[in-house]
């Protein structure tokens, strides 16, 4: 995509007389690789994570292909295990976690609060370099050698019994964590110190609130993952007994450390999606958001309670009965702020002026998938039910509804909504709607059968399975091909629009928010002069102006 952006920008001579934008402010590769402009870094992240998403998606496609037959005759068990590990590691750490925060967050957060950049622009660039270094290294490790432990790296499989490249894979995960931490620190500082005059906390767009909550989680949880991975590294490399029961360690401790990070990080994937939703729903209902303060506080509540539910991954590993019950109750509690948001968005639409443009279609699809993902999470949080569906395809379906359904749809909805702002070009609306519909259908066809498979008792991470599960597996794999096509649509027409799309006006959606008050694409320093915020968020007049 970068070449296209560069090629599209006119040669330096021609810029005279054209408004200066962040895209034509320096056109060399160097000017991109050494940029400290938060918008350019956002674009760099967009290109990088799109690449890693494609890699992860290819692995998923191969997994679905292998599962078309029950006897595992298409791949070997070893290759299958390495594929789903690659899929998990790449998708979690190199796509989902950085997706919305590092692309849309980087691009929009400073503009939305009226700042000309993030608080630490060079740290921001460093974060991208750390990310890329770790990502390229990890990809090499996962393809050249392969790792067969699953993305969860459970001990003692990972420390003693696996014959694969666990050590370098763990190092890559440790390093990419620093990229998350730097971004988190940067966003927190930016929100605290860089808000424009008049931009009070409760005038901030809800997307900024969600970014703030996300950043708190990144800064507080990621170090725990680093610790867990360092200990795992010591044990595998030097035989220090931390998790190995033979040396006095405890394998369950690894699970505690791992999920203490990995459950909150689910909210790192979901909260930004919720932030995007609040922007999309208000813009396309053309109405003030219902219950602004409830939505803002619910983001913070999710971030806080999300730290105390990790044990629900471990109900059946011998933790005490009272821990099990406490974690179950807290997991029910964390559903409350999520439910608040969903009800509030529905209420926002009431008496609006609703335009079903592509971003709104993504938003409504998002709400449906998130609700399914959320309520199936309640089944998993219920102790007696989890005894049956834990570690089955029910879990696989549930977290894909949350991570693919919620995070990816929000990401794509947001990309469409802000595409005119990022590139200065409009995408083709018709194809946008087609892709949104295909995405919704393909997604449900892929993952809805997995709920049934899970309840029937098909364990996850199974390469071979009893023949009576074959029909549902074929259905799921067929859905995956529809989903793959739906992913290719936006990739194609968005790239096409960079060159051939029509020029975007500053505010193509008649939306509110500071990002729509500046030209598309924005000038290098965002605002000609520091904006003074004297309006409430989402102050829609409740009537679309006549064109």
């Amino acid at each position: 995509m970068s070449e296209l952006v560069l090629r599209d920008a006119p040669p330096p001579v021609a810029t005279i007389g054209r408004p200066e934008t962040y895209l034509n402010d320096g056109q060399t590769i160097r000017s991109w690789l050494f940029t400290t402009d938060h918008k350019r870094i956002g674009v760099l992240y967009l290109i990088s994570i799109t690449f890693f998403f494609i890699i992860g998606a290819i692995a998923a496609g191969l997994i679905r292909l292998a599962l078309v037959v029950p006897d595992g005759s298409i791949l070997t068990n070893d290759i299958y295990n390495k594929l789903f590990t690659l899929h998990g590691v790449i998708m979690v750490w190199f796509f989902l976690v950085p997706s919305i925060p590092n692309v849309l967050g980087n691009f929009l957060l400073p503009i939305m609060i009226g700042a000309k950049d993030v608080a630490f622009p060079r740290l921001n660039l460093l974060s991208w370099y750390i990310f890329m270094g770790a990502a390229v290294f990890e990809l090499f490790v996962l393809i050249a050698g392969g790792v067969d432990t699953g993305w969860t790296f459970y001990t003692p499989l990972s420390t003693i019994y696996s014959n694969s490249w666990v050590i370098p894979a763990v190092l890559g995960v440790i390093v990419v964590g620093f990229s998350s931490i730097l971004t988190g620190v940067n966003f927190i500082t930016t929100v605290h110190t860089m808000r424009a005059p008049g931009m009070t906390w409760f005038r901030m767009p809800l997307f900024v609130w969600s970014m703030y909550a996300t950043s708190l989680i990144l800064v507080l949880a990621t170090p725990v993952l680093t610790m867990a991975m360092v200990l795992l590294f010591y044990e595998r490399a030097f035989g220090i007994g931390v998790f190995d029961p033979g040396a006095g360690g405890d394998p369950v401790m690894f699970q505690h450390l791992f999920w203490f990070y990995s459950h909150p990080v689910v909210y790192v994937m979901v909260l930004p999606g919720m932030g995007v939703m609040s922007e999309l729903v208000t813009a396309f209902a053309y109405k003030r958001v219902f219950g602004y303060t409830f939505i803002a506080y619910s983001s913070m509540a999710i971030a806080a309670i999300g730290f105390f539910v990790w044990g629900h991954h471990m109900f059946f590993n011998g933790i005490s009965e009272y821990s099990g019950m406490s974690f179950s109750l807290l997991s029910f509690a964390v559903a409350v702020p999520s439910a608040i948001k969903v009800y509030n968005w529905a209420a926002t639409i009431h008496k609006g002026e609703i335009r079903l443009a592509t971003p709104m279609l993504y938003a409504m699809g998002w709400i449906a998938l998130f609700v399914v993902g959320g309520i199936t999470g309640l089944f998993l949080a219920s102790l007696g039910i989890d005894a049956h569906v834990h570690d089955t395809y029910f879990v696989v379906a549930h977290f894909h509804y949350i991570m693919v359904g919620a995070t990816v749809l929000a990401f794509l909805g947001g990309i469409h909504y802000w595409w005119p702002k990022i590139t200065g070009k409009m995408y083709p609306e018709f194809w946008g709607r087609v892709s949104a519909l295909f995405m919704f259908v393909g997604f449900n066809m892929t993952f809805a059968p997995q709920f049934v498979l899970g309840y029937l008792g098909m364990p996850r991470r199974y390469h071979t399975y009893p023949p009576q599960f074959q029909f549902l597996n074929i259905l799921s794999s067929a859905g995956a091909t529809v989903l793959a096509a739906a992913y290719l649509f936006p990739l194609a027409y968005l790239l096409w629009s960079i060159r051939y799309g029509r020029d975007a006006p500053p505010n193509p959606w008649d939306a509110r928010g500071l990002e729509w008050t500046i030209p598309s694409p924005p000038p290098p320093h965002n605002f000609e002069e520091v904006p003074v915020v004297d309006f409430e968020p989402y102050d829609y007049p409740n009537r679309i102006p006549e064109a």
Partner: protein
Amino acid sequence: MKGALVFWPPTASARAAEVDHVVIAFTVVLLCLTVPIFLFMTYCAWKYRAGRAADRSHPQARNLKIELSWMLIPFGLALIFFVWAARIYDDELHPPPNALQIDAIGRQWMWKFQHPGGQAEINDLHVPMNEPVRINLISQDVVHALYIPALRIQMDAIPGRATFLWFDADRAGKYRLYCSEFCGTDHSRMAGTLYVMEPKDYEAWLAAQGSVAGLAEQGRELFSRFGCSGCHERGSTVRAPSLAGLYGSPVPLEDGRIVTADVSYIMDKILYPDQNKIAGYKQKMPSFDGKISDSDLLRIVAFIRSIGTT
């Protein structure tokens, strides 16, 4: 495509039936809480679509009573199910003291079950019906989990930690059991069958187990005398493929071929282990060519056949 299309798992205990009841009731309640959202949004998307004349006066941006009601009412309803499901969990963690105790040992990649009378079986588990059965779980290597869908129950088997699960099956039949915690290369082969039997059939089965002899039994003894069990059986420190369920199953080789483990393959592997290297394993096995008599070789193969599942 083999096997009938099924949409609900078999139910083999009262507790399994109760789990189904919670699931169904919870589903109904959650549908009541969420389907109205979808209907309402669809209705609004139509009624208030841009350009359509509709009454849009007095739009609300906040309403504390509504906010609190949709925060607390669904939570209150959900808590009923928290309690209901937690009671099932409580039951799962408190086996009756008089339960029949069977030991289960998980290792890469097989389950070994040992009955109180010393009868042992690989990957299959025979239990009497209408009697509480407690399975004591341990693992000899990585974390495994014993999962029996028909009983709606699972529990991890963890190295260095004793866990258990218990059930009271009330319907005779054959049900599947699995390892549900990912445990390495052949994780998906670590599965078997649970036989829930009439108590008298179970007694008969136990008795029959005590009198097995013949080639396979002699092979079992040779299996340890020649040191095979040092690597291929539980308790070994060397990572070698488990031979349970091997006979008749496909074996992926390092060079990409897949061969069926028949008698000749197993014999070749014992005599010439450097050939037909298995994908995912380091070849460490010594050759037994010239070190074992043909009759002993056959006895060992017979033993390996006997622990095969096909």
